[in-house]
C-alpha cells in the first residue's frame, strides 16, 4: 500500500507540472497584465515609464522562456513566488485562505453524503416508489440548478424571509455562517451521490452473491448491511472523491456570493488583476488537493473491499 501511495505521489509531479505550464501559457497569451489592470477602472493613470518599471519589477519584461524557466526553478524548491498585488509570498496568501475553503468543502460534502447516500439507498430499495420518484426529481433539479441562483434563493429564504441565518460573511467561522454556503455548494454533489448510490445499489441487488445470501435465508437487514451497503460503498466512495475535488473548484462562485474568505475568492480576485503567481499557486493547490483526495479514496476503497489490491 505504501508503495502505491508513493507511486501516486510521484505521478502527481508531471500532472502538476503540466497544469503549471498550461496556466503559465494561458496567462501569457490572454490580453492584459498586472500593470494594465491598475488603470482599467479608469480611475488611475499611469505613463509608459511606470508601466515599464512595474513590468520590470515583476519580471514581465523577460522573454517567455526565461520566465517559465524561472518559474519552474522556483517551483522545484516549492517557492510559489510573490504576489504582484500584495507583495506577499503566495504561500502566505494561500495559507490565509485555505482553512475557510476546507471548512466549506468539508461541510458541503458532509451535507451531500449524509443526505444523498441514504436518499439513493432508499430510492433503490423501492424502485419506482414515491421515495424514488421524489428523490430522483430532486436529484435532477439539484444538478441543474445554477449555484449562484440557488445561493441567492437560500439567502432570500433563510436570511431575509425567515431571519434564521446571516446572509453573508465568515463571522468567526461559526456554523451559522457556514450553513447557507455549504448547502448551496453541496446540492449538486448531493444530487449526484443520490443518483450514483441508487444505480450502484440497484446493480448489486441483482448480483449473484446477493441472491445467494437471500436464498441462504439471511435476513433482509443483514443483506442490506453486509452485501448491498458494503459493495455499493466502493462505487459511492469513488464519486465522493471526485466530487470532493470538484467542490473546491466550484467554491469560486459560492465564496464570492457569500463573501466567504476562501481560496476561490482569492483566485477570482487574482485572475481579474492578472496576479499570475497567485493564480498559479491557487490552481496548483486545488489540483494537488484533488489528487490527494482521490488517492485517499483509492486507499480507502482497498480497505473496504479486500478484492482491490494495488501492486
Amino acid at each position, binding site marked *: 500500500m505504501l508503495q502505491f501511495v508513493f507511486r501516486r505521489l510521484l505521478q502527481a509531479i508531471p500532472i502538476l507540472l503540466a497544469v503549471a505550464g498550461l496556466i503559465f501559457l494561458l496567462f501569457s497569451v*490572454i*490580453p*492584459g*497584465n498586472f*500593470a*494594465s*489592470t*491598475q*488603470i*482599467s*477602472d*479608469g*480611475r*488611475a*493613470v*499611469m*505613463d*509608459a515609464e*511606470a*508601466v515599464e*518599471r*512595474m513590468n520590470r*519589477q515583476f519580471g514581465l519584461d523577460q522573454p517567455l522562456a526565461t520566465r517559465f524557466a524561472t518559474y519552474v526553478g522556483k517551483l522545484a524548491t516549492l517557492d510559489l513566488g510573490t504576489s504582484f*498585488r*500584495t*507583495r*506577499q509570498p503566495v504561500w502566505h*496568501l494561500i495559507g*490565509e*485562505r485555505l482553512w*475557510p475553503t476546507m471548512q466549506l468543502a468539508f461541510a458541503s460534502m458532509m451535507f451531500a453524503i449524509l443526505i444523498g447516500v441514504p436518499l439513493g439507498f432508499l430510492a433503490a430499495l423501492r424502485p419506482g416508489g414515491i421515495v424514488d420518484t421524489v428523490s430522483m426529481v430532486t436529484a435532477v433539479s439539484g444538478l441543474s440548478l445554477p449555484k449562484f441562483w440557488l445561493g*441567492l434563493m437560500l*439567502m*432570500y429564504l433563510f*436570511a*431575509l424571509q425567515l*431571519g434564521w441565518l*446571516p*446572509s*453573508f*460573511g*465568515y463571522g468567526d467561522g461559526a456554523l451559522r455562517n457556514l450553513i447557507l454556503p455549504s448547502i448551496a455548494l453541496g446540492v449538486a454533489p448531493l444530487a449526484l451521490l443520490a443518483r450514483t448510490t441508487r444505480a450502484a445499489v440497484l446493480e448489486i441487488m441483482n448480483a449473484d452473491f446477493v441472491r445467494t445470501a437471500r436464498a441462504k435465508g439471511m435476513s433482509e437487514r443483514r443483506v442490506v448491511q453486509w452485501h448491498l451497503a458494503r459493495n455499493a460503498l466502493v462505487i459511492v466512495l469513488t464519486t465522493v472523491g471526485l466530487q470532493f475535488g470538484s467542490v473546491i473548484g466550484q467554491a469560486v462562485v459560492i*465564496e*464570492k*456570493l*457569500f*463573501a*466567504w*474568505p*476562501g481560496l476561490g*475568492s*482569492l483566485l477570482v*480576485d487574482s485572475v*481579474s*488583476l*492578472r496576479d499570475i503567481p497567485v493564480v498559479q499557486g491557487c490552481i496548483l493547490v486545488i489540483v494537488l488537493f484533488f489528487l490527494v483526495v482521490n488517492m485517499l479514496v483509492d486507499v480507502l476503497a482497498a480497505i473496504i473491499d479486500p478484492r482491490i489490491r494495488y501492486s
Partner: protein
Amino acid sequence: MLNKWFLSTALTLAALTVQAQEQPRRGGTIRFTAPYATSFTSNDSHVSPQIQDEIYTYALHRSLYRWNAAENKPELELATAVSKSADGLTWTYKLRDDALFHNGRKMTADDIIWSYTRIMDGSKSYPGARHIRRIKGAVDVEKGQAKEISGLKKIDDQTFEMTLVEKADPGFFLYYGQTAVYPAKEAQEPDFFNKPIGLGPFKFVEHVPGSRMVLERWEKYFKPGKPYADKVVISPMGEAASRDIAFRNKEIDVSILGPTQYVAYRADPNLSKGILEVAEVFTRNMGMNPAFKPFSDKRVRQAINHAIDSDLIIKRLVRDKAYRATGWLPLSSPAYDKEMKPYAFDPEKAKKLLTEAGYPDGFEFEWTATPNESWGVPIVEAVIPMLAKVGVKVKIKPIEGSALGGTVQKGDFQAYIWSNTSGPDPLTILKCYHSATPQSACNYTTYKNPAVDKLIDEAGNTDDPAKRIELLKKANAIIYDDAPVWFFNYNKAVMAYQPWLKGLQPNATELALQQYDELWVDASSPAAK
C-alpha cells in the same frame, strides 16, 4: 437635466443638513461595505491603487489633506496652516501638534517625509508615486539616483517645506489614501503590517482577508469628540445581489447601487427614503482613435455625437443613473460650464457632416468594449442601430475589463468605450488633452490642439484661481467642439443607507469613500450597542 441635478443636489444637501443638525450619538458599530469586485489587498495602503483599499484607509490612516465633500474641495488635515512662496512652487506646512499615531507617538515632519520617500521606491512601483512625483526630486529617488526627495525639507519637528516641479495645488493630489502618512520608525519594523498603526480615527483590530476589516475607536484622535462610533466593520462585497439581500436584511448599513437596483430602491416606499446621489467625477465616453482615418476628421467625430440618442440610452439602459455629458469636465468639477449644451440628437445633421467629410455612405469601425452594464457592450449594442441609420457600421470587439487599460494605452483600438476619471482637479484632468501628454499616460485619443495647449499652459501658470477656472472652461469647450470622444454621460453614484446611519457625505470623488469620523449610528441600529 442640469436643473434635475441641482434639485437632486439641493435635496441631498438639505437631507444631510437635517442629519447634521441632529446631536451625534456616541457608540455602536458602523457596518460598512466595500462594494467593488476584489477583497482588500493587504494591510499596507501604499501598495494598492484600488478604491476598495482606500475605503479602509479612510478609517485607519490620514493624509496631509482630506477631501471636503460638502465644499467639494481639498482641505488641510494633518497641518494647521500652509503658506506658498511667491513663485507658487514652495509650500510650507505647519503640522498639527495633536496628531498621535495609534501607539500614542506624536506625528512629526519626519513621518511625512519618510512616507513620501517610501512611496517613491522605484523597486516597489507604489501607485501613489504618480502623486508624489509632482514633488521636486521625487523622480530621482524613483530612478535610484537619490536617496532623499530634494523637494522635501524638514524645518523643525512640526514644520516642513515642499517644493513642486510645477504650479499646482497639492491638496488635489495629497489627499489620496495612497499617500497616507505612516509612522516612520515603526513602519520599518518587520511585523508592522500585521497590525498597522496610523493617524486615523479608528485603530486596527483585525483583517480577515476576503471577509472583513475591523477597527475600533482611537480615543486620542486629534478631533475632539470624534469619532462617534465605537467600531467600524468593513466587508468587501463585490456581488451586488448579495449586497442587496444583506442590506434589506439590515446586516449592513450602506450599499452602492447599480442601475437595476437603483430603479427598485427608488420604487420602494421605505428604501427610497435612504438614497444618497452624487454626480461623481467620471465621464463615460467612446474614445475615437485618429489613427483610424475616418476618426481623424473632426466632422466625423461630431457626426457620431449627433447620431447617438444619448438621452434615450441614459433613460432606458442606464436607468437615469447618470447625467448627460456636456463636455469632458463633469457637473461636480469646479470648472464645469453650465452654459454648455449637449450635442443634439440629429441624425440628419450627422449624415450631412459625414457627407462633408467624404463618407456619404458611412464606414465601418471596430468598437472595443468590456461587459460593463453602464459603459460596455450593452450600451454599444444600443448604439449600433442608431449609427446604422447614418450609415456607420460597428463591429464589437469584446474585451475583459481588466485588459481595457492596457489595450487603450497601446493605441490598439479604433474606438473604445470607457469610464474615465474627470476630476477632481480640472487642471490635472485637462492636461490629459495636452499634446505633450502621451497616449500611454492619459491622452488616449492622441488629442492635439495648439489652442487647448495654450489655454492649459496659461491655466497652469496663473496664480489667480478664478482666471484658471475661466481658462479651463475655454479649453473644455474647445475639446467638446473637437469631439475626440462621444460624450456619453457623467456617473451618478448612488448609495443606499439605513435610516439609523447619519453623517454621510456626498463625496463626488467617490461616494463609497466616507470620512468615518463624521458617521454615527442612532439607537435604532441593530448594532447600536
